[in-house]
């Protein structure tokens, strides 16, 4: 067994794992954070997407031991208890989900996009989602939701900049 020390959603955790254990199983089964899903074995579907040190990764294709020393954010860590991240709010508002299975991965991938491109056009959004499958929505409203979130976050950023102490 190997000891993996990592910070998950801001909380320091240490987990004993077999070397072959996947990060997604550490997250889902050892830590009980079941919002991260598994939809394929070949890192195509993106349902397992989480952030590792601020970058979106497919946690079904990362060994738990590779996450030793890292900081991981899952869908459960996207907003404070009871609150919603602008992406979560926009997915709800724009009907960007149906069965909800791909949704956490979509939101984590979208957050990764918006971290580097605050004003993506539809084409950029669609390309950012190329590693995430959705079978229900046809992506149409997912794209709309991400655009909406980007707009809200830009307004939010502008507002907080204006309100910042001089």
């Amino acid at each position, binding site marked *: 067994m190997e000891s993996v020390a990592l910070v998950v959603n801001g909380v320091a955790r240490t987990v004993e794992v077999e070397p072959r254990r996947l990060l997604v199983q550490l997250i889902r089964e050892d830590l009980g954070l079941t919002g991260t*899903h598994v939809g394929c074995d070949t890192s195509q*579907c993106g349902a397992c997407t989480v952030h590792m040190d601020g970058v979106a990764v497919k946690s079904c294709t990362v060994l738990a031991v590779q996450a030793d020393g890292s900081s991981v954010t899952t869908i459960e860590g996207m907003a404070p208890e009871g609150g919603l991240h602008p992406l*979560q709010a926009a997915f*709800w508002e724009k009907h960007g989900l149906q069965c*909800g299975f791909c949704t956490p991965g979509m939101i984590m991938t979208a957050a990764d996009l918006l971290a580097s491109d605050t004003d993506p056009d539809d084409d950029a959004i669609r390309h950012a*989602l190329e590693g995430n499958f959705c079978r229900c929505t046809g992506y149409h409203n997912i794209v709309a939701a991400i655009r909406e979130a980007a707009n809200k976050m830009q307004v939010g950023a502008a507002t907080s900049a204006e309100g910042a102490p001089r």
Partner: protein
Amino acid sequence: MATEMQRQTTPEVGGMGHSVKRKEDPRFIRGAGQFIDDLVLPGMLWLDIVRSPYAHATIKSIDASEALKVPGVAAVITGADLEKAGLHWMPTLAGDKQMVLPTHTVMYQSQEVAAVVATSRYAAADGVAAVMVDYEPLEVVVDPHKALLPDAPVLRPDRAADKQNNHIWHWESGDRAAADAGLAAAEHRISEDIYIPRIHVASIETCGCVADWDAIRGQMTLHMTSQAPHVIRTVLALVSGLPEQNIRVKTHDIGGGFGGKVPVYPGYVLAVVASLTTGKPVKWIEDRSENLQADSFARDYHIHAEMGATNAGKITSLKVSTIADHGYTDAAADPSKFPAGLFNVITGSYDFPNAFVEVDGVYTNKPPGGVAYRCSFRVTEAVHAIERMVDILAHDLDIDPAKIRMDNFIQPEQMPYKTPTGWEYDSGDYPRALKLAMDMIGYDDLRKEQAEKRARGELMGIGISSFTEIVGAGPSHDFDIIGLKMFDSCEIRVHPTGKVLARIGVQTQGQGHETTFAQIIAEELGFPVADIKIEYGDTDTAPYGLGTYASRSTPVAGAATAMAARKIKEKARHLAAHLLEANPDDLVWTNGKWSVKGSPDRSKTIQEIAFAAYTNHPQGMEPGLEAVDYYDPPNLTFPFGSYICVVDIDKGTGQVTVRRFVAVDDCGNIINPMIVDGQIHGGLTMGFAPSLLESMTYDENGNNLAGTFMDYLLPTAVETPAWELGKTTTPSPHHPIGAKGVGESATVGAPPAIANAVVDALWHLGVRNIDIPLTPQKIWAILREKGVTA
């Protein structure tokens, strides 16, 4: 005829016609859904499955001794073990039988061969790797046409003596002689072979279950991914002998269904057996490869169609013969009377007198199935065939494909319309939908642009599909699954404080029933959607229903919900009369209140009435305010639409790009416009997918060539077009709220629009038909054959 519904409620109440935000979303956007693999029970074991590498082989031996030495492995289950309990075969929904585990022969690649039960996911997988199976390969039958040849190996020797061949059944509909006569007399005849390939629903959540046997209470709880939990409960009771009241099936949240979660798979049965054997909860979760390689397929119809018409393009006759590849057993999820589903809706949106359809089911060494892939029973196959044939006829006669459709449409004044294969379409206005689609896309300008581009050697095509669906199964005189009539149900309880709990017999796999069924009740009774909780998917509490598939939730359970609400409204009228000291006949219902006719200030709200039902009911009346309705629909519903697709084809690569796609749908009265649009977006994408990308193929040895997402190509956001939607509204005259169902229309309607557009782009080169998927390889080869170069 019913009239189009106007909104009756305020946005705060949120009845029909309001885009109410979904009540289920707060848990999903936070990652707090409860999917099957999220469920962990104390002491739970894991089940994993040994699968066959061969498509057809004799099992000479299974040696589990090394597997049983793997740390954590608790048991290995083989077909021989199941045979002792008579559980090695199970019935299919189509009246055939399927192996749970084989005792002698495997019939398709990835078939279940043995199950390993262990204390962890990893230990179970280690156990699977350690089970040694000795196979002797047998001759493999992949091609269903060859399967019918006299010298083909008999794949199912377990069948009766007079059925020692690979022909399963023959089914026909319509008038063969009339269709033949119609063809013989026709001025113009066309004939075409159209193959609709095997595809897979590939819901992003795979299938799975947790079987939990409580020996002390004699209780089996089966948590599972099922679109039809009540049917599962009854089948489990019949097969296992467990008393039905002690079986509880719970579905929790389901990550997409599309028909793939209707059947009973061996894995579910194995988990039940393993839990009964070990006395512990047992979890089985498929991985993606197992899901794609072993679960029920869709389509796989080899269609031969002949159409007769006048030289002016008026259709006179249609004759269709089809070979249906069912794999090694008929596990189709079709109603009993319809082994080829509702394929005889193949006359489509068109008015012509003569039609005959026949289908022959065939066994091959492929996985069983015959599920829907987001469509009512075999309707996509029917729509594809008729819409392709109409388009070929148009091009053959040099008539615009829009004009030929307009000239052949069943007209709205002909409704209700009896088709030559026996269906009675309840309503429809096909010219209006096509006209709207043509206006939205600018059809005439596109044809001009196409002519200009063709003159320059560029390849652009325009394709139309004017489809009619048949959904909402179904009336009990014709529709049952293993004898269970296809009614559906709703039970509504109004609590004293004016809040509502309603339970429905259908399931949701993402359709948003927690919201839309609340909206139906809000519409009927005036309770705000926020005050209504919808429950489903627990057979201990929900009323009996046949489940969610074939777009039947709104047509059947939605009707039951409206009817149950109306029973409550009627009781509320008598309660209100008591409270208002008025005659019940003098009361009128408006905006959630019963009022005295002519004195609107003398009224009682539904909430006041609900309180009185528990605190102040008249003597002699039953207290409480509840109702249940089991709805047996008088007819099916017939959603329709017209889609127009514009494609550009790259001459260098053969790549087809869908430049624009306009979809005009008519699903009758709409409960939630936002959700309807979402259903259409998703349906269009699942129509786009098999048109251009998806196909489950096998080599001559029966090896699956598309068994992972590396090879089975789901569309991503990059390829998927931005959809343009339009609506017409023609309410169903027999449905209580005039609705028709919408979840599958677009999957049914989209493929021929795309295929027609591609052939339209290539017709001048001498191309009459190309079978989907229209992959770059296929198109590139045709272009080179026709001498087209970049």
